[in-house]
């Protein structure tokens, strides 16, 4: 039942967001092309922004896995931590050690470089 409620909340909120955009924009004409040129502080675009800054799925995914998956394991771990005590601490230590190997690898591959 809670999930159903949550589903309706998501549906209504997203629908509201789309409706506020769609209703007033139904009859709006498209702006003319000179106006649609991207704002570059006065400069004219020579390429699409997408060609200059390619979306980098691979490093983004790698980073998210390294950090977010850690969290995925930590949730159930947090529930049993008080019960398990020292054993849980050592398990988490091993898990983090393995994950940090991945982070070091990502570092070596230059994922953290701001290009």
């Amino acid at each position, binding site marked *: *039942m*809670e*999930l*159903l*409620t*949550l589903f*309706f*909340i*998501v549906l*209504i*909120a*997203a*629908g*509201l*967001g*789309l409706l*506020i*955009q769609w*209703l*007033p*924009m139904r009859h*709006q004409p*498209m*702006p003319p*092309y000179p*106006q*649609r*040129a*991207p*704002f*570059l*502080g006065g400069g004219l*675009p020579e390429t*699409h*922004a*997408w060609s*200059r*800054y390619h*979306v980098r799925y691979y490093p*983004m995914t790698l*980073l*998210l896995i390294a*950090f*977010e998956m*850690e*969290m995925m394991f*930590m*949730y159930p771990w*947090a*529930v*049993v*931590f*008080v*019960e398990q005590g020292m054993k849980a601490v050592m398990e988490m230590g091993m898990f983090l050690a393995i994950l940090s190997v991945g982070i070091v690898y990502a570092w070596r591959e230059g994922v953290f470089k*701001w290009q």
Partner: protein
Amino acid sequence: MILDELILPVLLVIVVLVVGAYLVAVLDEAIAGALGMPRATSVWTAPLAQGAWLLTQQANATEAPDWRAWRLAPALYLALAAIGLAVVPFSPTLIPTDLVTSVVLWGSVEALATVVIFLHGWSANTLLALIGAYRYVALGLSYILISMFVLIGVALPAESLQFSQVVASQEGLWNVIRQPLGLPLFLIVGLGMTFWGPLNLADSRDLARGTASAVSGPPRLVWNLARAAMLVPSAARRRAPSWAAG
């Protein structure tokens, strides 16, 4: 049963979403006025006037945007804010949806917010918006890491991922006292996630408003509304358990 578990929670969340976003805008206006920035005559009507103005303005377009993603991103951000509100414990008994895994849900909202904010900047196909989007991806990862430690820290003594259990675990000792760093850290994460005030780096002025630089009219209204609405659950989350326990 349908009324108690379905209609009332949905209504509660939607009302708090709209009213909360409005109050955030009023507060923002009042603080800006107190800091000496130019402001409207009344802080109470200024957000409404701004919203009505945006609603009637022409929506800007870029040459070749990713249309569907561009229109969907603000709406999805609003939906994420609604999910965040749905698991806020307003009082020990009043929780719109008391999921067993609500801590996980909030964690995933933070991760998905990164995706949605990136989508918003990416889909405009404009340089400044794209830079803002990449900025948020880089920052979002670090926000997630901090918020993870805070969330885990809350779940540890409660031995549960349910926010009502988290509230119950603070009967004897508030988490604010047990984990003094948790509250300030979480408030910083809240500001970062909505890129508000000093942490406004994704939609900052040096990028001509970043991911929203090419957005005007109704889509801009939804984006602003969603950002203000997102600030409500992130601020309420940590505070609510502390007073609810008392």
